[in-house]
């Protein structure tokens, strides 16, 4: 296998794996705080039992997330030494802040997970807050660094040597805010619907208890709150991409030609050979209107750059469509829940609804992965948009194919081990 492709696949695998655990690492502490807070307020022991069981699941997910995160910090150097050698300092500030946040998370995770019987209930509950706050902070810092790769700024090069950098300016690049918000809400969707999905499945299998209903409600509420907000943040992120990364925007919309009154395409298969997107339902002027607020606005197409500067359009477009489709599906669940709450003053309990929620859990995770494909594959052939190509960043060490094969095997073991551990916890 070509070394560049092997390195990219290894990065995609390890990042795609880690991001799911990171989402639970962000979302579960919040659910834990709510559950334990309910126990402190009502004295209902069911809530405490729920929090204790979730804390064991959190221990497993956090540990796997921590080691897979360590892998990423090494891989940046092992796979992309030339990128890090030049631009590492520009990204140093967010990564150092992230390391501090992760430290706080790890310290308080130890306190929270092992401190159930060593602290007063109230002190124990309070020790969960730093975990939740640091988890969100980690996301902010890491995504900021990724946003910089999309909108690099705040540095001066002389030849290919970095001679000055403004780390704060680099952190506050135009992609940071929309990407951070989009990622945190995605974590809420993945964790919320993931949790709800597990308990919905259990109820469909005929198990039922007040605790399980509590659990499903908490997960569902988290997902349902995030779904409409995610629609708004997605629109914000897309308009940012249209402004700052017109080529990526054209790829995700399958827009080959630069044109005024560009149509919004639903579905469709882009064909880079003939430079057309076929079989799409087109809404005339829709894309111009969505991106620029004016149905007659000119949208730049892929034809603005030579073919060698374009990302693989079919992958990016399909991933984008998948993400949007899943987002709309989750939004529909939110609407269903909202209508039921307004009408009957309770959450929907019907079997079709439970089935829908069961499906929503895995779909939310797939949507998350699709979103990362959009932003990462959509930036190709660049690792730092407009500044360094991915192929110029990759290591020239031999045997990347072997390391990819090893990574596939190791992550398969991690996945299996996580599933076994979680299943065991669920049965206890």
């Amino acid at each position, binding site marked *: 296998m070509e070394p560049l492709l092997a390195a990219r696949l290894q990065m995609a695998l390890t990042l795609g794996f880690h991001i799911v655990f990171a989402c639970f690492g962000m979302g579960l502490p919040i659910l834990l705080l709510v559950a334990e807070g309910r126990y402190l307020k009502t004295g209902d022991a069911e809530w405490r039992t729920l929090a204790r069981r979730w804390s064991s699941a959190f221990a497993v997910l956090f540990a796997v997330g921590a080691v897979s995160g360590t892998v990423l910090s090494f891989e940046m150097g092992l796979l992309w030494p030339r990128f890090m050698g*030049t631009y590492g300092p520009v990204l140093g500030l967010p990564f150092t802040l992230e390391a501090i946040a992760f*430290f706080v998370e790890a310290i308080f995770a130890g306190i929270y997970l092992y401190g159930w019987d060593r602290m007063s209930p109230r002190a124990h509950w309070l020790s969960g807050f730093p975990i939740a706050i640091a988890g969100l902070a980690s996301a902010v810092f890491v995504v900021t660094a990724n946003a910089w790769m999309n909108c690099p700024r705040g540095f001066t090069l002389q030849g290919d040597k*970095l001679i000055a950098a403004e780390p704060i300016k680099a952190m506050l690049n135009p992609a940071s805010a929309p990407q951070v918000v989009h990622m945190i809400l995605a974590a809420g969707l993945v964790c919320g619907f993931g949790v709800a999905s597990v308990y919905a499945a259990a109820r469909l299998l005929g198990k039922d208890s007040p605790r399980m209903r509590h659990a499903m409600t908490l997960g569902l509420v988290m997902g349902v709150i995030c779904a409409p907000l995610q629609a708004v943040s997605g629109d914000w992120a897309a308009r940012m991409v249209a402004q700052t990364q017109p080529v990526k925007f054209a790829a995700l919309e399958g827009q080959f030609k630069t044109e005024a009154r560009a149509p919004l395409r639903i579905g469709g298969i882009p064909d880079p050979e003939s430079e057309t997107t076929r079989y799409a339902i087109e809404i005339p002027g829709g894309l111009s209107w969505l991106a620029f607020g004016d149905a007659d606005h000119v949208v730049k197409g892929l034809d603005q750059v030579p073919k060698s500067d374009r990302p693989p359009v079919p992958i990016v477009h399909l991933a984008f469509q998948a993400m949007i489709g899943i987002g709309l599906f989750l939004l529909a669940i939110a609407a269903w829940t909202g209508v039921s709450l307004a009408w009957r003053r309770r959450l929907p309990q019907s079997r079709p609804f439970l089935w829908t929620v069961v499906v929503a859990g895995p779909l939310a995770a797939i949507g998350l992965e699709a979103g990362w494909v959009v932003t990462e594959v959509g930036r190709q052939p660049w690792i730092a948009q407009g500044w360094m190509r991915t192929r110029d960043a990759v290591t020239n060490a031999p045997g990347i194919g072997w390391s990819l094969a090893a990574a596939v095997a190791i992550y398969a073991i991690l996945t299996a081990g996580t599933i076994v551990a979680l299943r065991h916890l669920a049965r206890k």
Partner: protein
Amino acid sequence: MEPDLILLGVMLIGLTLYSLLGGADFGAGVWEFNTALRAPEKEQALIYRAIGPVWEANHVWLIFVVVGLFAGFPGAFSAIFRALWVPLLLALVGIVFRGVGFIFRTYASGISEKYMWGAVFAFASTGAPFFLGASLGAILSGELEFTDDGGFAGDYLTGWISSMSVFSAFFGVGVCAFLAAVYLTREAHLAGDGALCKKWRTRAMASGLWMGVLAIVGLGLMAAEVPYLWEGFKTRAWPLIGGSVAAGCFSLWALRRGRFTGATVGAALAVASVVLGGGVALYPALVPPAITVESARAPRDVLWALVACVVLGVAILTPSMIYLLRLFKGKKPAAA
């Protein structure tokens, strides 16, 4: 004070703390081999209770050092991660399986599954410090050379192997085992388990003596094979080496006299002095012979921003860390 010096100092302290805290976690896994991976339930319980609350935090130090290196000294970072492609990948595999081995064992459902993940934990706990030690040794050896465009001039598969790197690999595993044995002697004592305490005390003293022998061999090897480093030790780092010898001897004496907190402090100081001494002897080189602090460092404004981050980090992390350690490592650990 120059920002690059401050940052280097902080990273060296980070590396030291990683050796003292993360190293002891590795060491606990190394000892599982001593019982052919079938340690009595009580013995394993002590290990797992000791590591449980703190291992996540103990291992963040490594990430801290890695991030500091690429942010502050990108030239050294990209050189190290190219030249040490093989040992760092292997160390990474060890780090991954050490972490998941521990957590999957904790939540394993059956006896055989427990043993399987316990074995994974033991092998990985040994492999990680072995290859991290080898990596440090390869850097110290002064044999890593680079081309003008920054590529590794040696062989990617075997270029990292030298007498120094092989020695450091074994030294690294030994340090971990020694620290773990001393710490666990204290924990067994605090838990009031006399038999277990005695067992760990014997292990601690045996590994301590062995480490003393190994350290002498190491100094000899350095004098013969790595002259520039030997020079650094002779001119600058000798007080630290002297301190290490003294602290190591004190630790053994305290173990004999049953003063386990003193022994813990002595062992930690002995290991810390070795790490700090290595750093002091290496300076101003980062990856000798060619890559130095000056050639590898980031622009000044970045370095200052990182120093500011470190100050913030110390302010937040110190009280948190103290709280964690007081809760779980204080005078009275919980019965179970």
